[in-house]
């Protein structure tokens, strides 16, 4: 299996699982964790693309809310204390990615000349 095939297979399975999660969550789960969704159906197809992309997070939040592990006060607490970290980390990461990309970039191998290893056969079509 080539790298491209492996990536395509992984993305395909991610999408398939996400589709299953979307069907089960929107058809069954959402009514049990969000009382405002009870009896409302038209908006649900709009959530499908998002659920397909972030289905592990959907499953985690569904579990937290359904099992009573959710702490709404914590969930809504602003994460401002982490903003400074990310403010420094993001530009450093961007520069690091660019520098790393340039560092591993190949050079056009114009020093390698074409070499004929064996002469042409006599016959032609």
């Amino acid at each position: 299996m080539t790298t491209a095939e492996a990536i395509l297979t992984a993305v395909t399975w991610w999408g398939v699982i996400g589709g299953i999660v979307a069907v089960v969550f929107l058809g069954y789960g959402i009514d049990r964790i969000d009382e405002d969704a009870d009896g409302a159906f038209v908006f649900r197809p709009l959530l499908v693309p998002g659920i397909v992309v972030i289905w592990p997070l959907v499953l985690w939040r569904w579990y937290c809310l359904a099992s009573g592990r959710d702490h709404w006060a914590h969930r809504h607490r602003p994460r401002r204390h982490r903003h400074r970290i990310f403010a420094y980390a993001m530009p450093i990461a961007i520069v690091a990615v660019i520098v790393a990309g340039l560092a591993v970039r190949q050079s056009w191998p114009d020093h390698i000349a074409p070499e004929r290893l064996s002469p042409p056969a006599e016959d032609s079509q």
Partner: protein
Amino acid sequence: MSRKETPFFVGYLPLPRGLGGFVALVSVALVALFAAAALLIGGTQDAPQDAAFRFDYGRQTVTGVVELTPYPLLRVTEGNDLIPPGKTLMMTAAGKSGVDMRAMGLEGKLAQVSGVVLERGTIDMIQLRGGRRGIQAAEGEAPAMQTEPLGRWRLAGEICDGKCLYGAMRPGRGLAHKACANLCIIGDVPPVFVTTQPVEGQDFMLITGPDGTRLPKEAYDFVGQFVTLEGDLERRGDVLVLRLDTPTIALVDG
């Protein structure tokens, strides 16, 4: 006790005194930073060559002999001012697809093709119109076409998809174009090998698998990167065809 007023920015209120200089400094610094970054990063990129769709030439219709390498070539026998007889054209369809299925029944026969030309230097490709308007059997006896074997070669360069390289995209090569090139090649767009130095007067050649097969899947991981490889070379009209010996392909260090 005196208390120093600290300016506090609120988005929907006028800018507080004392913050004007800071905002101006940050604004100028950001513009300068991004301009410098754009110059530096842009300076590391190779300039795209002069290659493009030539819609300005108008639709071209020529007749020739279809050869399958397995990627279809047209050996032009009745050309026009732009595409003279004796020229060899690679053929592709719209989007990321080739014309293999449409050309399959015409191998060794005369066919009339019609479409728009992609041009990169002296190398041409033609993107066919849809259906029979793009390629159809032509009246007449197909003349015999010569294939000139050129021996076995070891070459360095890059495997690209022919369509993007010839001007469908700019740049149409390199690592950033790898995924696009692979999708084109999977869709049967003719793959092309760009050599580091001219071979028999050509910098580009059609590349296929061994023994008349398509480019093998093992080569997909090397597309868009600089490689060395070996294969048997032949000349069909003014196009070179390289038959890749798959196990010999390797990335160039550095």
